[in-house]
């Protein structure tokens, strides 16, 4: 599938609005433009409706509409004058990211994704210890015991249950025999209605205690003498022992989390605890981690940066060849410490992912629905990959790049093309 023609009727469509990248949506022509069947996903339905219904904000300089040529010239002048540019946001497709890297090299820029914090909660663990993971089809077909850490996975990835945890059909692990364990702040929350109550265990837990829980489970599995007394963080000793036994007895257990939800200091240590439990389990049985991510293109940006430069994101070209600084190159810190004099922000996927409020002059390549809260130095609307132009992007499990199609006729340029035009002007 690769066509610059807009889809005509009932074509299969890939959704670019969350890291599950469901590719079974369809689009059909409607009276007011194309209509998308989002297969019951509220997030996709909303996002497509918003993207297809919204008018595009015009290109602008400091809030004043201007021609594309004028804004490109202005943007190029800003890039030429910058001594420490920061390229961030990076919510774009593979070719957008390829173009971003070319321009970053040319300008000596530092790169970070708007989801950088979440991305690095996982990446730091990969770099310190490595891990053992599975992919969507493996979880769907093989998992017989699934632990989901955190409550937000179900909102961030709306079709998670249907596609992976409790699918209609599976090769090796009948869905009706699966056990699901929901761990997180569920005490005052409804568990997802689509999960069968009889197969679901809920362990209410503050996520900051997740690492402690993983440690206890590892201890129990290793048959270490543990002084648990009255349990741990409100979970009774018997329930802990029961969960450990279920992990020991499972054929293929899976631990699911979304690092974005682990928004507390040093959450990478919590991810490490999850990963170490998976590693321990694999000594005797099979288990895999499934870190959910990828929404707004964080996996995409990181993959392309890694293959082209040899380093993951939070890399920069300030000193010739690329330099990797996972702690120092956090974009929020660069902005707040005044260590950058120009921000180039790409947010092609979602209007909600606009640039942070900053005094630093900003060039925004934004989703057509993006209306910058405060006028930026230069605004260029760019097409949405998967709607205005074809593209590629990665889903959560990092192995699968899906082609994004084109849904409507559009005059909006892809981010990659705008970046090439900027580079030509340097």
């Amino acid at each position: 599938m690769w066509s610059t023609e807009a889809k005509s009727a009932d074509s299969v469509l890939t959704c670019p609005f969350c890291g599950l990248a469901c590719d079974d949506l369809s689009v059909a022509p409607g009276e007011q433009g194309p209509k998308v069947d989002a297969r019951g996903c509220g997030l996709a339905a909303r996002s497509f409706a918003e993207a297809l219904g919204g008018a595009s904000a015009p290109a602008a300089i400091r809030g004043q509409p201007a021609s594309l040529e004028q804004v490109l010239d202005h943007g190029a002048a800003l890039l030429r004058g910058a001594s420490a540019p920061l390229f961030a946001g990076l919510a774009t497709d593979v070719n957008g990211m390829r173009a971003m890297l070319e321009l970053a090299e040319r300008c000596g820029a530092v790169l970070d994704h708007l989801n950088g914090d979440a991305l690095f909660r996982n990446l730091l663990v990969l770099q310190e210890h490595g891990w053992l993971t599975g992919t969507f089809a493996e979880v769907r077909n093989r998992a017989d015991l699934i632990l989901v850490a955190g409550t937000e996975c179900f909102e961030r990835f709306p079709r998670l249950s249907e596609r992976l945890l409790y699918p209609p059909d599976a090769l090796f692990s009948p869905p009706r025999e699966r056990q699901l364990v929901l761990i997180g702040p569920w005490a005052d929350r409804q568990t997802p209605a689509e999960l069968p109550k009889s197969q679901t265990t809920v362990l209410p837990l503050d996520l900051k205690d997740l690492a402690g829980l993983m440690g206890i489970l590892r201890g129990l599995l290793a048959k270490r003498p543990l002084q648990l007394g009255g349990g741990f963080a409100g979970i009774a000793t018997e329930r802990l022992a029961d969960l450990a036994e279920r992990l020991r007895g499972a054929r293929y257990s899976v631990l699911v989390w979304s690092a974005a939800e682990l928004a507390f200091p040093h959450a990478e240590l919590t991810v490490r605890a999850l990963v170490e439990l998976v590693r321990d389990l694999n000594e005797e049985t099979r288990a895999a981690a499934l870190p959910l991510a990828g929404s707004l293109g964080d996996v995409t940006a990181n993959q392309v940066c890694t293959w082209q430069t040899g380093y993951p994101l939070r890399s920069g070209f300030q000193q010739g060849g690329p330099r990797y600084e996972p702690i120092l190159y956090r974009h929020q810190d660069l902005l707040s410490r005044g260590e950058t004099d120009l921000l180039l922000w790409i947010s092609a996927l979602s209007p909600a992912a606009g640039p942070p409020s900053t005094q630093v002059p900003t060039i925004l390549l934004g989703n057509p629905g993006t209306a910058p809260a405060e006028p930026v130095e230069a605004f260029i609307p760019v097409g949405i990959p998967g709607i205005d132009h074809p593209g590629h992007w990665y889903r959560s499990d990092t192995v699968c790049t899906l082609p994004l199609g084109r849904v409507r006729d559009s005059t909006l340029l892809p981010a990659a093309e705008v970046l090439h035009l900027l580079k030509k002007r340097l």
Partner: protein
Amino acid sequence: MLTKLTGGCLYDPANGVDGEVRDLYIRDGHILDGPPAESPDRTYDLTGKLVMAGAIDLHTHIGGGKVNIARAMLPELQGRDDATSRSGGRYSFGPATPSTLATGYRYAQMGYTSCFEPAVLPVNARQAHMEMADAPLLDTGGYAMLGNDDLLLQLMSEGVGQEVINDYVAWTLRATQCIGIKVVNPGGISAFKFNTRKLDVDERHPHYPLTPRDIVRTLSRAVAELGMPHPLHVHASNLGVPGNQTSTLATMEAAEGFPIHLTHIQFHSYGTEGERHFSSAAAEIAEAVNRQKNVTIDVGQIMFGQTVTISGDTMRQHANRRFAHPRKWTCMDIECEAGCGVVPFRYRDKNFVNALQWAIGLELFLMIDDPWRVFLTTDHPNGAPFTSYPHLIRLLTDKGFRNDQLACIHPDAAAMSRLAGLDREYSLYEIAIMTRAAPARILGLTDRGHLGPGALADITVYHERPDAEQTFGSPMLVFKGGQVVVEEGQVTRTLSGSTQVVRPDYDRRIEQRIGDWLDRYHSVRMGNFRISDEEMAEGIGSPVQVHPCRPRGSA
């Protein structure tokens, strides 16, 4: 534009040219048949220089998910690249985990012009091609991995006919835009997902009523019957296990006479003799290869130093996790297709096992008679980074140097090896066979790997230096499609390559079965699984070049 290369000494085994001074003429990216009437626009005086076709690496891990996992996991193996800084470019250079840009530049700087990624997971094929598209100066291609995918195992278990398997194999090639079929630890990666930690050639899979032998036989037959030039590319069972020579020999037999390529065979040529129960079985393996003309191999030579092993063989990589250096590793079960494992490794010359592995690789090179059936690889980066090829060529062409190196390794390993007694020195002609003519022939690439009329003007010119490592490490000139891309070891021009594929016919009815399977159990629809030619050219950035197959069924 007409270019003349004059006075060079040609080594062109495909055309039987062994060190003859001849002129070459290039126009429109190709080598001309004899001198044209008009005078050349540009003439290169190559008097005293060695001229060969651009080199071809038929087994090097340069693209795809597991390579990128290695990069992401091991930023400490990257470094500033000084050697090629003049070419500029956005890359760092760690020899074991080079960025795609560094990969392209470094290969070109050694005179390589075509490289093949041997482990393309079908679901990850887009990424593999995107990474290879971003490796400049190289034409590339991939081998699609089958043999651990649940659909093939299911089809075989149902007892569908060979024709259906053949259709599925051909569909996979087409969908993934690949040139070959690879099987890694046949059935073993799948078995590992069922918590089986070892699977011998005649052992039954824990779920399917199949053995690795069945898988090798079925797939090697499919590849032959489809008329594909490249034989089934096999990473055999029990990689790295002492005594695995038995399974390696059994894997050769499993092909039942159909062409079969056993890759990185060094890792599969181990005996159990001696007090450490680890010994060289190179002699037995070499004898079997010499005897069975349907067998080709590449060596997967190891070199001492830091590298990273990246493989689809999750079963064996997980077993080797305790040898990780630095101490971290990643494994992944992937999409009911296969898996991958990334384990960093440091081979030490004073470690008995590593030292013997080094010797075993060289024994295999020297004991296998026919240079058309043995290929020069380090299984980059598993045995060593590809940048060690010039050093490897010196080891093969210079017995004195080899013996000096042998004297430096663990003495017990040296004592257990036959290497000291092997006098063979590869000639330049033989080096040209194993790095140019033979890989082109076994991949079915008639347009390259030689210097005859009509060939693609991928040409490498070497200075003849006192030692082969210097000669092959820094060519005087490299032409890619007729354009000079490297001068005196420096990249002077960058351009992008194309993707080499073969495309045997298949019965479209197989798509019904595959589509239903994907819809019911998988996570990607068939329409998205398949990569079109337009997508390759416009989206991925590497247009497809189709090479012919023999007619289907003519095997």
